[in-house]
């Protein structure tokens, strides 16, 4: 049982990761598109990219962004997690979902929300200007971008230690914090929406926008050059995962769901209570309220900016206009389907992999650790293309291309690292003694999983489902090339609207999306689903 499971896990993950990745590696060694009859083996792409000064400066900027983001988000995220979980912070129960739930706006829309709220002529900027005569901030600077990215990422940084901080003391959380740091560092290289909207107009290039440039720079999209840039980010994962693994060697220490009952008393904050609340609230205002208000305002005004009075321009036309998009309802239904049913199936898949790797001392586990990180390291622009190619040129699965399955597979692969981290955080809390007890009484590995491990982490699995749902709902770049009439999702509709620039419609659509997902989240939490289980 356990052998079969483990072989399945390793082979399965290797297949789904190396499918798209293998194609990209192959592509990087060619002179043009791999499917072109005149393509030949060549190192030209490497030569071009590695000697291009544009690449060097974009890489440098990305490095700076990633470092800055990590330095802001990790301490802040850990602090927030600690405050919410280990202390008697007032209003904890109310604040918790706001802090745990990733904001479910597409990154470009999020960035646009900031532009409408605090851009040079944003609502808040103009109000501030009316009050004090000037706008004391500049959204379009490198540091503004790093700050926003860092604050946003604090949520991701906190989510890892979160589950563990719930029950153990701070020093033991350290490896998990460092684990999050590695992930965020990588996410910094993946940022696309923020740099495109906030940095690009002034010519600030990061690696992903440099990649974007390569679709047009030479006239036709230069896949071979794009592949090399993508692989340069993939290469970064190796030292990161290596460092991570070293830090996580002590994983056994986390086990907390043991045979003995434990009780925790929250740390009293005393006089620090209100400053602590203020910090949390301020952070919420900047990372959630500002962009959401920006997007929401844009969805109900016909025009905005300098010289406009808000009350003169209020309208619900954009919502009405959305009716002109027949594919919209389908898009919403598909999005919910892929988030709920697709998300559940993905959690099952992640759980199987997680169980297979659970308490398995083998080199294969380290292989898996490296493997799962790779798809996340591929920038969205190229992941979408890679999946298109896989579904086009790998004939056995080609019929799936025009169905929602192709999207589901792509999403599952891309979020592999995130999903597994959720599962393993749940699994790490189970003390070995419980499983060993079952084994002593004669239970086989399968029975142990079924009767002991899985029931113990069931709340963790349901919470993971909810978080995976959130990720799938806001996903947009991965599926761009797999969509067709009938398989639209909201994320893709937003991308296509972005192309023609209907930002009022995008805002209205995003408001609907946020309301819908918020409602589902509310119901789920009401039904007793716990995000920190």
């Amino acid at each position, binding site marked *: 049982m356990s052998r079969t499971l483990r072989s399945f896990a390793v082979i399965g993950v290797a297949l789904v990761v190396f499918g798209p990745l293998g194609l990209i590696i192959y592509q990087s060694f060619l002179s043009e*598109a791999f*499917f*072109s009859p005149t393509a030949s083996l060549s190192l030209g792409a490497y030569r071009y990219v590695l000697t291009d000064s544009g690449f060097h400066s974009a890489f440098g900027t990305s490095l700076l962004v990633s470092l800055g983001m990590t330095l802001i988000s990790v301490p802040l995220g850990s602090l927030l997690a600690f405050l919410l979980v280990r202390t008697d912070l007032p209003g904890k129960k109310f604040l918790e979902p706001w802090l745990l739930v990733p904001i479910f706006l597409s990154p470009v829309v999020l960035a646009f929300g900031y*532009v*409408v709220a605090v*851009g*040079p*002529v944003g609502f808040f900027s103009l109000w501030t200007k009316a009050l004090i005569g000037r706008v004391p901030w500049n959204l379009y600077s490198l540091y503004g971008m790093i700050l926003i990215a860092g604050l946003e990422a604090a949520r991701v940084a906190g989510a890892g230690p979160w589950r563990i901080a719930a029950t153990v003391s701070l020093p033991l959380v350290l490896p998990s914090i460092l684990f999050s740091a590695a992930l965020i560092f990588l996410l910094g290289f993946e940022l696309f929406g923020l740099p*495109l*909207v906030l940095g*690009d*107009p*002034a*010519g600030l290039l990061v690696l992903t*926008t440099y990649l*974007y*440039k390569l*679709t*047009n*720079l*030479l*006239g*036709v*999209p230069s896949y071979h050059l794009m592949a090399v840039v993508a692989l340069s980010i993939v290469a970064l994962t190796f030292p990161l995962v290596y460092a991570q693994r070293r830090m996580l060697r002590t994983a056994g220490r986390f086990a907390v769901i043991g045979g003995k009952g434990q009780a925790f008393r929250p740390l009293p904050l005393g006089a620090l209570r209100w400053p602590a609340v203020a910090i949390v609230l301020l952070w919420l205002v900047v990372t959630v309220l500002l962009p959401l208000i920006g997007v929401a305002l844009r969805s109900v005004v*016909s*025009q*905005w*900016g*300098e*010289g*406009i009075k808000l009350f003169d321009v209020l309208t619900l*036309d954009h919502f009405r*206009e959305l009716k*002109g*998009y027949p*594919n919209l309802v389908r898009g919403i239904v598909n999005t919910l389907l892929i988030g709920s049913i697709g998300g559940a199936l993905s959690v099952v898949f992640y759980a199987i992999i997680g169980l297979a790797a659970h308490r398995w001392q083998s080199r294969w586990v380290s292989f898996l650790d490296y493997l799962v990180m790779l798809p996340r390291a591929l920038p969205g622009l190229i992941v979408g*293309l890679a999946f*298109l*190619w896989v579904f*086009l*040129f790998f004939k056995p699965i*080609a019929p799936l*291309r025009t169905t929602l399955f192709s999207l589901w597979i792509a999403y599952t692969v891309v979020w592999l690292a995130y999903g597994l981290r959720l599962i393993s955080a749940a699994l790490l809390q189970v003390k070995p003694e419980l499983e060993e007890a079952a084994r002593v009484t004669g239970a086989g590995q399968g029975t142990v999983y079924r009767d002991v491990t899985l029931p113990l982490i069931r709340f963790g699995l349901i919470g993971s489902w909810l978080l995976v749902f959130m990720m799938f709902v806001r996903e947009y770049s991965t599926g*761009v*090339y797999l969509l*067709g*009439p009938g398989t639209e999702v909201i994320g893709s509709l937003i*991308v*296509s*609207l*972005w*192309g*023609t*620039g*209907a*930002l*009022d*419609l995008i805002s209205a659509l995003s408001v609907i999306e946020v309301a819908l997902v918020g409602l589902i989240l509310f119901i789920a939490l009401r039904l007793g689903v716990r995000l920190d289980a």
Partner: protein
Amino acid sequence: MKKFLFVMLLSGMLAAQLSRSYAAESNATVTAAQKEGKVVIYSSTDSASVEPLLQDFKALYPFLQVEYNDLNTTEIYNRFTAEAASGTGTADFMWSSAMDLQLQLASKGNALSYASPEISGLPKWAVWQNQAYGTTFEPVSIAYNKRLLPADAVPQSHADLIRLMKEKHDVYKEKIATFDPEKSGVGFLMMTQDAKVFPQFWDLAKGLGATGAKVYTSTGAMLEKVGSGEHTLAYNIIGSYVLLRQKKDPSLGLVLPKDYTLVFSRIAFISKTARNPNAAKLFLDYVLSKRGQTVMSEKSLVYSIRSDVPGPITAAGLTKDLGKALKPIEVNTDILAGLEQNKRLEFMKQWKEALKR
């Protein structure tokens, strides 16, 4: 001029003649299309704005199902090339504003040769070897914010813009938006055409650099920011998009430069490997027909290319206002020069130097 009018009249009559005999002529095509039952379209034209056109087409051929994929120009190219190479079937009808990419695909043998009965209604430069068809006649314009830009600072020509950027430096400082030719193929095409017909183009580019102009990849983002006043003017915007926005945002103004106005055309072709070639032919004929072009001009606010479609949003209307100042980007392989790698990179380098980036 008289001769010109006569030709126009003649071609108009001819077109009328053709559209009358239309149904009879393409009878075989109609029957074949009926068997195919549908047409798959990849297009960069926004699905909301194209809706009236599709509705009318469906009214004409109720037996045809239209599978309309609204994609951006790069996506269209990426999808088409990969799908065609894999042999799994791709779009029947390709319709994109990336003129250069479309023509490149056609010139590499991806387009079906088909002499549309509507050819006579089109300008000669809009048809390439009966394969690629220019379907629209869209002026490349300057969009500006009426609330914020004083009337004496609105440029009426390219030369004006160069002068105003110098004289009213403070008004324009960081307030101009334009395409990033490095990231946008359409932007690159327009700028290379500018450089071709306007000797002072590089002065203009330097002016943009000196005023700290911002560069964008999407028309929508530029118009949004001109509307809000973050920028007061956007250079090289396709006129049809401004017209569409004006419906919602009355503060947007549109200038068609008097010295010369580039004319841009969305290119369509039928895929050589189309599964529904006959349905695609019907769609092409419809888009080029007087009926289709009238819907396009009146309902979708996209400038019609036919000289026999009356109204302001048409080639005829523009010709009346601007006459010889109109400089259409012709649908032929000259456009492909821009895809030549060294020349392209040289242009980009010069652009970046002018912009001081």
